[in-house]
């Protein structure tokens, strides 16, 4: 796959991605989504009142509305298992920009209709040793090229697609949790109970592998790189929701990544900013790259500002 890096159509696709970035939805609102990123999406001047999933009324520009990704995806199971032809998705997370704003987490929860206590993305406060500097590190599923999780699945409920995405078929999963133990990064989350706080209307929808919604009780879920969005040429919701442009998403074949407002040549970005992958020694070949936390935009303490008590408590947990 990597050998087949297609260099053509770079420019046009870059423009595509730019366009997508501003269109992609943050909070999904009963059949429509709205862009959460700042910028100037085809503003119409016309304001529309919408209700968010947590029941709040919001006034948005009608230009920000677009049709919901997850509810109109009509991809057969077979296609969803194969992936999007010719693509090889990659993510770059710029650690110098993250201040634990946690918008990626809530956007992801909205996008996938996850209960509030289920996070497919977590933000760790990393500090390798006493003498080294702490920094915030968002952690998604790494969509490894040598995924230890899909290897051990007894029923092929989790699988690696040709476009690099590792997905879970919640309708096939038997809930043995072996993949959760196989994944060294703890990227996988189990649906321990029947979903709470999710509208019945969502739960009644037919399950869709690519949207990962609705999540099914007793099975395993995880970050899925939003394949229903990418299939439509849109960016995953964590990317568009991030106010600080931490997440870059793109296609390795096109050698391009974008966070919605900035676009880079992937290889140049990794070269110039000394990008790396987390724990290369494990041999899992992640599809997620990190840019080191140098010349940071925010002091690390600012990550604690604006956190609720509950969220603060989550950083006091230790495994000791």
């Amino acid at each position, binding site marked *: 796959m990597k050998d087949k890096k297609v260099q053509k159509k770079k420019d046009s696709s870059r423009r595509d991605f730019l366009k997508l970035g501003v269109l992609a939805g943050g909070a999904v609102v009963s059949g429509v989504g709205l862009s959460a990123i700042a910028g100037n999406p085809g503003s119409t001047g016309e304001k529309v009142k919408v209700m968010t999933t947590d029941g709040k009324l919001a006034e948005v520009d009608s230009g920000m509305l677009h049709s919901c990704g997850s509810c109109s995806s009509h991809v057969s199971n077979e296609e969803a298992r194969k992936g999007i032809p010719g693509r090889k998705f990659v993510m770059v997370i710029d650690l110098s920009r993250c201040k634990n704003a946690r918008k990626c987490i809530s956007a992801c929860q909205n996008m996938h209709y996850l209960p509030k206590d289920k996070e497919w993305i977590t933000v*760790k406060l990393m500090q390798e040793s006493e003498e080294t500097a702490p920094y915030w590190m968002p952690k998604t599923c790494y969509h490894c090229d040598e995924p230890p999780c899909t290897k051990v699945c007894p029923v092929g*409920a989790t699988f690696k697609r040709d476009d690099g995405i590792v997905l879970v078929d919640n309708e096939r999963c*038997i809930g043995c949790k072996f993949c959760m*133990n*196989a994944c060294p990064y703890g990227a996988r989350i*189990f649906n*321990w109970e029947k979903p709470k706080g999710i509208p019945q209307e969502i739960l009644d929808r037919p399950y869709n592998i690519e949207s990962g919604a609705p999540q099914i009780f007793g099975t395993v879920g995880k970050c899925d790189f939003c394949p229903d969005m990418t299939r439509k040429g849109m960016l995953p919701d964590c990317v568009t929701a991030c106010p600080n442009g931490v997440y870059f998403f793109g296609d390795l074949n096109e050698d391009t990544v974008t966070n919605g407002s900035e676009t880079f040549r992937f290889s140049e970005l990794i070269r110039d900013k000394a990008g790396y992958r987390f724990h290369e020694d494990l041999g899992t070949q992640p599809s997620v790259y990190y840019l080191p936390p140098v010349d940071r935009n925010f002091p690390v303490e600012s990550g604690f500002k604006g956190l609720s008590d509950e969220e603060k408590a989550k*950083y006091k947990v230790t*495994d000791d």
Partner: protein
Amino acid sequence: MEIDNKTKEVLKEFSPQIENFNRRFKILSAILIAIMLFALYAFYRQEKEGHIITGMRDNVVWGLYIANFVFFIGISYAGALISGILHLLKVEWRKPIIRIAEFITVIATIIGPLYILLCMGRLDRLFNLVLYGRIQSPIIWDVIAITTYIIGSFLFLYLAMIRDLAILRDTPGLKIGKFRRWSYKFLAIGYQGTKEQDKQLEESITIMSAIIIPIAVIVHSVLAWIFGMTLRPGWHSTIFAPYFVIAAIFSGTGVLIMAMWFYRKMFHLEKYITKKHFDYLGMLLLIMAAIYGYFTFSEYLTDWYTSETWNARVLKKMFDLHQYGWWFYFSVLVGNLLPIIVIGIKKLRTINNVALVSAIAVLALWVKRYLIIVPTLETPLLPAQDTRMEWVHYSPTWVEWALTMGGVAFFIFAFMMLSKYVPIVPVSLVSKPVEKTEEVEVKPTVETV
């Protein structure tokens, strides 16, 4: 089938055991059934409400259930390996104890896999294992190995029981129900004790005992690989398969000695199960304790010496008295050294002492299984943050304890029921004269120059 006088005599001795359901038996059964019913209720709650009512959470996704699973498959080694090997070697003293050993095997191999099922989020999709099974997954290796093992150990037990079933069928005057008499007739599959039948049966048993040994080794190796094949400290160890196999023989021997002690007391089998049995099996326990201790030492020494960060974090929890320290030292020091000391010193090697240290060793091995699973899962690679305390720190809930007790109750109950059905000591074997072992006669060769 003609039953000779010796057999009749022996059977007479055992018939009260299978005929009478005394008060003690009934009370014990009632207690065990109550525990099992409570476990069933716990199971119902778990299926209804989901695994949220267990102590398992993200991070520690396996807990007590998997520890029990490994434990029960471990003790099933009693019949499979011990009785298999003793049969192949035609060891005379095995005769009174092989049925106990094979009962342990069959019952434990049934209970063990039930715990895997309890750990599954979607039991209703069990059939997916057949529909979509992937041979690349160690779980499928386990499914194949364990089903083979269950069938194999059933056959092994059954073949060894046929003679006794035929004796029971042809013994008039036993105070048993009509159905039970019919079942003896049915299960004895027309065995009449003719020379040809006898030869066939003997050959089948020998073949089965030869087959069951490698199967047993494979089952526990595959089970160890479920852990060994993951990128986890404390699991990802090349030593795991043989380590698990030795642990299994160790615990299997321990449970066998415990069962022998109970039956000896309860059924007054002093004539059949003698000090010699406790001495010999005690020696086996000692050897296994020594090998297991060696493996344990080797495993933890290498991890501790290099102290690679992730490994070291798990080890710290094991050694720390505020965390798993007491359990760890109990399992590796007390559970390992005590059997060696007590059995090793002749003065201390009494029947009661051997049974006692066996019980301690078995308990220690159960604790060790728990320590293999939980501390590793409580130590994620990434710092435990942006998470919840109960996700990282596991403590089993009443549901898991109820189902654990249910498994133990089922084990004892099944044992009681089976030993009511056929005599716990193989009547046909102990009434037979000493087997002729094929001894090779070494003729002195006279060399003539």
